[in-house]
């Protein structure tokens, strides 16, 4: 079987220049479970895309020797190609043992089976200059938006409570639209709704997202000011909301950035896919429930109905 070395261990990352955040990526050469690939070292690379989703360059970041961690300043590295806008980069790790068998890292390699690098994740870190940082660890989901002929179309359902808004703190939902297929060309029509603590829908937004692109949305910008004011907690002044998002064209990865620029504080977290909430003994139900819910939510968000 032909394996793309650059697709073996990857993490798509949104560089958030528009929020004034420095983006770094932390990479490890260890299996987090300390069982597999002991003593392996890796070469690290960064694919840089334009804000419109055009591939610009593949940069060699350096080696991660065995049993080591490396932290790379992505903002600094990508600045010469994309100085001020938000855009996608992808961090790759390639095992030295496999790299020695090809002439170029872009080459595919013939292997009997896909090597097991499950949960080899990268750490994405955002920070303010001289401020705090927030990090999150994740990897590219297997076969993300691969669009292999004959396979069912990808879709997204996502939900979370990670929204807090006040004069101090702001929440940005960051949508990442990536694929393991370099020829991928889908537009993702992502819709989401925001709900108050009582369950009332307070805002809806529809976003068309090109391939290999990212989009950051300031949640406070789409909820009417009077609603935010009315929902503010008397103790801490924060208005909190829940989020439900759906897309029937593609898998879109959402990140939630909670930032307090005046303090120099930032946190970032991903969401869990709905399949992770479902433990049916009949596994086929996972995908069915997700698809049905995604379809209902898309319908509600496009018609403006339901609460």
């Amino acid at each position, binding site marked *: 079987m032909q394996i793309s070395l650059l697709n073996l261990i990857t993490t798509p990352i949104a560089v958030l220049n528009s929020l004034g955040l420095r983006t770094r990526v932390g990479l490890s050469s260890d299996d987090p*479970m300390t069982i597999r690939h002991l003593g392996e070292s890796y070469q690290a690379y960064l694919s840089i895309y334009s804000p419109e989703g055009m591939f610009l360059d593949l940069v060699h970041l350096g080696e991660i020797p065995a049993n080591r961690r490396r932290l790379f300043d992505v903002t600094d590295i990508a600045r010469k190609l994309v100085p001020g806008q938000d855009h996608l980069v992808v961090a790759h790790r390639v095992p030295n043992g496999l790299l020695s068998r090809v002439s170029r890292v872009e080459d595919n390699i013939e292997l009997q089976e896909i090597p097991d690098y499950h949960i080899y*994740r990268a750490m994405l870190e955002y920070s303010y200059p001289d*401020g705090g940082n*927030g990090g999150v660890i994740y990897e590219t989901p297997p076969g993300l938006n691969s669009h292999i002929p004959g396979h069912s179309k990808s879709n997204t359902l996502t939900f979370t409570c990670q929204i807090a808004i006040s004069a101090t703190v702001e929440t940005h939902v960051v949508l990442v639209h990536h694929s393991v297929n370099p020829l991928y060309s889908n537009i993702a029509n992502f819709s989401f709704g925001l709900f*108050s603590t009582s*369950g009332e829908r307070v805002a809806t937004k529809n976003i068309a997202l090109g391939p290999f692109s990212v989009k950051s949305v300031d949640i406070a910008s789409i909820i009417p000011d009077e609603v935010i004011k009315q929902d503010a907690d008397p103790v801490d002044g924060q208005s909190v909301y829940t989020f439900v998002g759906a897309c029937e064209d593609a898998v879109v990865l959402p990140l939630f950035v909670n930032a307090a620029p005046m303090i120099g*504080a930032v946190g970032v977290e991903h969401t869990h896919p709905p399949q992770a909430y479902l433990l049916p003994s009949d596994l086929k139900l996972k995908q069915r429930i997700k698809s049905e819910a995604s379809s209902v*939510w898309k319908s509600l968000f496009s018609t403006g109905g339901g609460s």
Partner: protein
Amino acid sequence: MVSSQVLAKVARKLPSPVRSLAKAVYYRGAHWAHSDMRRFGTVQDLYYWVSDGNIDTLLLLQNYFSALYPQLPTETNGTVSIYDRDGVLLGSESFALAHNGCPRLRVSTLLESFGLKPVSNGIQSQFGTLEVHIAIPKGVLHHIKDQSPFYFWDRFYLGYTTAKGQTCFVHGVDKTHIYCEDGTNQPFDWYKPVKGLCWSPEIPVNINDYQKLNVVLINRTNLATDVDLTLTDINDQSLTWNQSIPAKGVRRFELTPENTARIEPEELRLQVSGMASQYGRPVLFKEFRNGAISAMHC
């Protein structure tokens, strides 16, 4: 144990349709994920709370059933239980969830309602674990009543907020209890105690970035466990700390530039040995000199 491993190996070699049939015969009405998962129920986890007068824990309890079943009535109710660092119950509170609703609770307020003043009562009441148990809504139970065993795993997000007004969130990672919807409300443990589990977090730690970096570990089993945390620098010099975590308890290792001054401060790596459950990996709770905080799993 050996026979189940052999069966699992054989099963992996079967064609997919045959594997599904073999699974159905093997489990005969029980759930493939756990033998205590009969009929319908939920899987819940323990989470780290802190309430020390500066940092407080914020619970935003989203009705995730509404997201999964938007077409069904999903009003339901739930209970939040707060435990101290040794796993001793401090108190419980019930709440109602509307369809798409999200009750908002603060741990400091809950502790006060239990008659506890978190700061003055000392360290025992400043951090611990909590569990939230949201019942499957009646409308969802009715919808799945004719299906084979079906469980919901509340993946959860926990909020932390500071006196300066910042809020950050971290997701759940693991499982602690199985609750069957049979009216007993008596949970089963997800894990049996095991020994020798390690975790090697991917994060490169530059300790000078932090005022304090808390490495938080929860023991999800019913047996105390001894945990080592090792911090190693680029010259392979290391420091090791040890703590015993009681059953269902929580402990935190507090790393600072001062107590790690003997090793190089950049691109440090963490290793946890003696973890009580395979996916019970640490929460890193970061505190910065400017008063900022953040939390992440690794």
